[in-house]
């Protein structure tokens, strides 16, 4: 799914004062691109993703998904949050199947979809478990499964690994990249981690803090599939340095 933003800005009203969260942004993301939105916290990057998701209106400008102007939640757009936000009263299976259930899919259809999905996530053994029994990493996998269940053509990830420990985070990055290699959705991933951004993305959009303004648009030309030891390559360092320079 192609994503086009035309002069999108967001202004909050706070106690009568106007607060610019996101300066007017124009950007064109071709279908299938993995884009990292990089910036310090409070730079409006989450706001940007929420606007694209149709969860909150832009103060000005417009969002175009595949040449259609979009202002509301879209069935082909999947959103994943920093914490897993699973429903405690639903099993892992029922949590992942939620989008299908809401769309009116039959039980058989849900079952078929999850039979394919659960092994990819490494969650077969946990299908009947409740979220409280899961580790942070597994809960986030389930959240990823829920997003993938709806077969999105655009994935919006709002700091999806932010709440995990370093090892789990690394593993999940690889898992997500492996899944993405097969499915090739467009991905917009918010992160404040330079390494994560360079490691995963085809393209970095770097934002300045308050108000969020696009300060750099960097194409990452590292080979795929990405390997963990790439971070020690000189080329990786060049990208990371460029991103850092743009941030400050």
């Amino acid at each position, binding site marked *: 799914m192609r994503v086009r933003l035309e002069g999108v800005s967001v202004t909050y009203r706070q106690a009568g004062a106007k607060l610019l969260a996101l300066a007017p942004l124009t950007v064109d993301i071709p279908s299938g691109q993995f884009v990292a939105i990089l910036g310090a916290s409070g730079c409006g990057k989450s706001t940007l993703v929420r606007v694209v998701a*149709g*969860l909150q209106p832009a103060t000005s400008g417009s969002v175009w998904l595949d040449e259609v102007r979009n202002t509301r939640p*879209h069935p082909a757009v999947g959103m994943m949050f920093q914490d897993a936000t699973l429903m405690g009263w639903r099993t892992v299976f029922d949590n992942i199947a*939620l989008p299908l259930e*809401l769309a009116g899919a039959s039980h058989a259809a849900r079952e078929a979809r999850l039979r394919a999905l659960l092994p990819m996530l490494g969650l077969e053994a946990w299908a009947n478990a409740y*979220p409280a*029994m899961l580790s942070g990493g597994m809960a986030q996998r389930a959240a990823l499964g829920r997003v993938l269940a709806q077969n999105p053509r655009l994935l919006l990830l709002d700091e999806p690994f932010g709440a995990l420990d370093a090892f789990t985070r690394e593993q999940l990055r690889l898992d997500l990249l492996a899944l993405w290699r097969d499915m090739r959705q467009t991905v917009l991933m918010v992160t404040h981690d330079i390494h994560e951004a360079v490691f995963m993305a085809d393209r970095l959009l770097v934002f300045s803090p308050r108000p969020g303004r696009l300060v750099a648009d960097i194409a990452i030309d590292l080979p795929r599939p990405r390997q963990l030891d790439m971070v020690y390559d000189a080329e990786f360092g060049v990208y990371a340095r460029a991103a850092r320079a743009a941030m400050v």
Partner: protein
Amino acid sequence: MRVSFPITMSRSANTWTRRLAPLLTLVLVLAAWQLVFALRLYPTFLIPSPQMVWEKAAQVLRDGTLWAHLLATSEAMVWGLLWGVSIGTLLGYLIAKLPLAEVLLTPLIVAFQATPIVAYAPLLIIWFGSGMTSKVVTCAVIVFFPTLMNTVVGVRQIPPRLRDLMRALSATRWQTLCKLELPAILPVWLTGLKTSATLAVIGVVVGEFLSADRGLGHWVKLARSQYDTALVFVGVLTMTALALTFYSLVYLLEWRLLKWQRQSRSV
């Protein structure tokens, strides 16, 4: 495996003491009661012996009077709970969702709740007559508040992220209600229902004290006016048993509905 064995032992011993403790309390209370009676500290019409109460209970069980009053009170409780809990849940949901409803209803509800029910129950009896309706109304009035408060708290504590999720998935209002809001408030709502269930007896009995021709409240009032203290004891203990039964029923309901919490905890 071998290590866990002694731990299991001590745990099971622990549950045994915990299970026997209430029984022990009961025995102690009965013993103290018997002692007070045996020492003849008070005349029998003030404190009858446990045995006298027991015999009275056996008698009213046999001749059916206890069942008749118990049935009348229970019936009023069930209706009072149904009305009170339904209205409490509905209003609680409205208050939690609509700021206007909160502003409009909160002062009214707090004032209503702060006024002692015994003070305005006579009014209810004037309005609704001395039959079933006024008992049900007093019960509903007293029962609805805990449900209302817990519904408000339950709806308010639903994580905003889960609401975002439902919106991102284009869920309809009805789907959000059935698949997010209702299951999410259920644990807190059931806690409120437990309080309501125990208050239901109070509500009905207040109504019956003031004016009724049947029911445990009416029965106790009658027994008291005849200085049949043993019968008063039987009546009051029946009310206790009734309250505990209703509480247990809700507890059972909770146990059935919140299986997921138990299974989540066991790991």
